[in-house]
């Protein structure tokens, strides 16, 4: 293990591996971390005293195909891999998500007070979903025809934990624009978790949410694309990814709590524009702007425009206000020109 070449977040991931095959690597990583205890970030001055350094605690439960939560505890912090792929993916995914929030945003768990990251896998029968129930994450196995298991994509795990962070910060109401913003921020966190774990720059990243969830019977690479909303799938049975990428195409509907999973494409695209325009690692500046705007007094009923204003204010401190402003204009949240130049749709 060459200290300094492997980034600390990767070392931490390797050190957390409890798998016989990687025991030598994990040991080496633990030694390297012990030799180099400096964390890349210091906690925010506003962090609660004593809470800032509370260690990661994870719990994964097994619903055993029933719908009672949380189910049977099958893996707690410090325990070795179980061999159940869904259990271990959830456990590792919680670790990867915690690493982003802890290292980059100096946030200690979902509530910034070190709460245990808790999840349940094997929820229901052929259950095609994953959700955040206000206390924990829940993952289905999928039906095997359209969807495989929902823990298969790290972006999904990051997304669900992201809902937890939204709930403990702005508490965005899950309906209409504030709901779509809630969804979008969860997607942004999901994408960032994946990029941080893979140490990818903005132009290397896929910007896909839920890659690998579809079975190979489905014509589609993922559920959503932040880079190109509306292009993630196009399938005979499922139809086409309906996400808009511009306010001109905002979908007014009563379904899906007012289209929260649809209109989230608009702020998703804005984030992608900011991240790719700034270049480098998206979590470093673009991610920080989004996180700070979310957690600095944003209203629970915020519109896209409210959030856009918040991000520009934060971006001034990061010398990125112009880029952020242009991105919100490009997706039509702020109008500069009477018609858009994009020809999508």
């Amino acid at each position, binding site marked *: 293990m060459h200290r300094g070449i492997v980034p600390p977040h990767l070392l931490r991931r390797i050190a957390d591996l409890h798998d016989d095959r990687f025991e030598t690597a994990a040991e080496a990583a633990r030694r390297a971390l012990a030799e180099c205890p400096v964390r890349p970030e210091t906690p925010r001055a506003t962090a609660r005293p004593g809470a800032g350094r509370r260690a990661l605690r994870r719990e994964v439960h097994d619903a055993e195909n029933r719908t009672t939560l949380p189910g049977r505890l099958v893996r707690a912090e410090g325990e070795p891999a179980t061999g159940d792929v869904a259990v271990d993916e959830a456990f590792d995914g919680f670790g990867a998500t915690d690493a982003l929030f802890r290292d980059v945003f100096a946030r200690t768990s979902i509530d910034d007070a070190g709460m245990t990251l808790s999840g349940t896998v094997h929820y229901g029968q052929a259950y095609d*979903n994953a*959700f955040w*129930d206000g206390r924990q994450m829940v993952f289905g196995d999928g039906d095997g025809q359209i969807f495989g298991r*929902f823990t298969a994509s790290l972006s999904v795990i990051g997304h*669900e934990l992201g809902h937890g962070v939204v709930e403990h910060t702005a508490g965005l109401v899950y309906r209409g624009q504030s709901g779509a913003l809630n969804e979008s921020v*969860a997607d942004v966190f999901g994408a960032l978790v994946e990029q941080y774990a893979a140490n990818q720059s903005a132009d290397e990243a896929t910007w896909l949410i839920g890659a690998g969830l579809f079975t190979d019977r489905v014509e589609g690479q993922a559920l959503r694309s932040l880079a190109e909303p509306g292009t993630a799938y196009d399938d005979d049975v*499922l139809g086409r990814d309906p996400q808009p990428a511009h306010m001109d195409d905002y979908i007014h509907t009563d*379904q*899906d709590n007012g289209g929260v999973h649809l209109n989230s494409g608009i702020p998703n695209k804005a984030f992608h524009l900011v991240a790719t325009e700034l270049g480098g690692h998206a979590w470093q500046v673009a991610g920080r702007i989004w996180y700070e705007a979310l957690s600095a007094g944003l209203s629970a009923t915020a519109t896209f425009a409210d959030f856009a204003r918040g991000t520009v204010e934060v971006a001034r401190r990061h010398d990125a206000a112009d880029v952020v402003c242009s991105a919100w204009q490009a997706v039509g949240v702020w109008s500069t020109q009477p018609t858009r130049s994009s020809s999508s749709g």
Partner: protein
Amino acid sequence: MEHAADPVLVVRVIRTGGFAGLRRQWQIEAASEDEARRWWPLVEACPWDTPPGECVPDGFVYEVVANDRSATLAEQQLDGPWRDLVDAVVERGA
């Protein structure tokens, strides 16, 4: 018997939301009076005046329509008679 004159019953379940945000729809059509009679107990058992509940993030939203009655339900509200009806429609109307 309000429905005796109209033997045709259509029950539709529309599921939206969920992590994927995919819209799925299932429907049964009872063409004959006999067939409709087998569905009516399931329909009648449901409390159609149920107000829509708060959805958890990425929870499914169900819209259930039986002829002229309809209700919108969060996934967590889907138990008892609602669960029985929706499961039956999803199973038969897939």
